[in-house]
């Protein structure tokens, strides 16, 4: 399945690029992220405690950065394992475009799911992803400009376009997909 999205971030491309490559920043922004281990310049391992409704489970996510083209973009590939729940893997192309009032972040993520996950469709992926995306990009924008949360005019603004296609960076999206098995299996 595919998740695509665009976010406008009101600061220059170089800064957005640096933040996207900073494991500490990502760890602080990913909802439920408990730890990030750098296992090389382009490899990292994240432990994420995901909580949605009755589900509260820890997922180990392995992320590799490829096709690095600073500060224009990269490809993120990842695999998330949730124990008996199964796994999800996929990749996301992330591209940064300079626009008048800052940077446009565009991503296109593709997933494959395995184990028990393999039989599930896409129910609620959009809704759950949307929420986590809001959390992630909200955190990310404040990370780049702490003043943003005050809503001041000079602060960083974040618009999401288009609303229906909103999504989330791969690491978090994989976790969401993994969470949804439970949903399908009980229906």
């Amino acid at each position, binding site marked *: 399945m595919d998740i695509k999205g665009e976010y406008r971030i009101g600061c220059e491309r170089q800064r957005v690029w640096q933040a996207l490559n900073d494991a500490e920043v990502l760890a602080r922004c990913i909802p439920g992220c408990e730890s990030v281990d750098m296992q090389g310049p382009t490899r990292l391992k994240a432990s994420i405690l995901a909580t949605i*409704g*009755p589900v*509260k489970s820890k997922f180990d996510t392995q992320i590799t950065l490829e096709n690095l083209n600073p500060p224009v973009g990269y490809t993120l590939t990842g695999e998330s394992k*949730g*124990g008996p*729940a199964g796994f999800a893997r996929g990749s996301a192309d992330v591209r940064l475009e300079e626009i008048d009032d800052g940077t446009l972040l565009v991503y296109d993520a593709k997933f494959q799911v395995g184990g028990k996950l393999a039989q599930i469709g896409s129910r609620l992926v959009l*809704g759950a992803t949307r*929420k986590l995306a809001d959390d992630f990009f909200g955190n990310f924008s404040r990370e780049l400009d702490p003043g943003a949360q005050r809503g001041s005019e000079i602060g960083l603004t974040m618009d999401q376009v288009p609303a229906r296609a909103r999504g989330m960076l791969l690491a978090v999206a994989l976790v969401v997909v993994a969470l949804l098995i439970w949903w399908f299996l009980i229906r």
Partner: protein
Amino acid sequence: MYEFNYHRPASLKEARTILAGASDARIVAGGMTLLPAMKFRLARPSDLVDLAHVGELRGIREKGDQLEIGAMMRHAEIAGGELVRSRIAALADLAQGIGDPQVRNRGTLGGSVANSDPAADYPAAVLALDAVIRTDRRDIPAADFFTGMFETALAPAEILTSVVFRQPKRAAYAKFPNPASRYAVVGVMVAEHADAVRVAVTGAGPRAFRAPQLEQALSRNFSPASLDGLHIDADDFNSDMHATAEYRAHLVLVMARRAVAAASA
């Protein structure tokens, strides 16, 4: 099964004490959602606090034009209760349409409302019947309660004790059920109160919500024809293998018309 501590308190006070002392406790009401999640290891609480024997959470009481239903009342009890049937038949009908007999005999009003499943039936009734959610520490108006997909205004360890529904002049609930689970692909409750018409939708978006556009149209004229020509925006709607967002938007109007017709009959 992995290990966890099972508690069965006999009072709210005892339940609160246990919740305060456990590292990662979950409240279990009917267990219709939590237990499957635990079986799949998608939840591993250290402690389960079963509210089944807390007498304070049971019962159905009438107070003026309000009907207060205890959080631990099972769907089957609400569907079959004389008082509910005679005062708010739409609510009894809704309960009768949930899941299957097994679910209706185990699942509870409080569990369903606290879970805020986007496709659950009760949230539509809570919003349309202008309910108040009562907890062990405060009263929460329906409008403030459902905050997102599986998210509510409840604080961690806060216990939902009852739901106080307002009796409408007339009301009805219509849903398009998923044929396997009976969860609402889309469900709409329409309720005409003395002061306003309330229309609440479940199944369509990340959480149950009211539809002001439909409420205005029905306030002018409470008939299915009033809804002709209206358009529901599918932007934030759920899309899955059962129904696209656009189809759900279409179903909202269809179910609303059926509910109005049923309430008028």
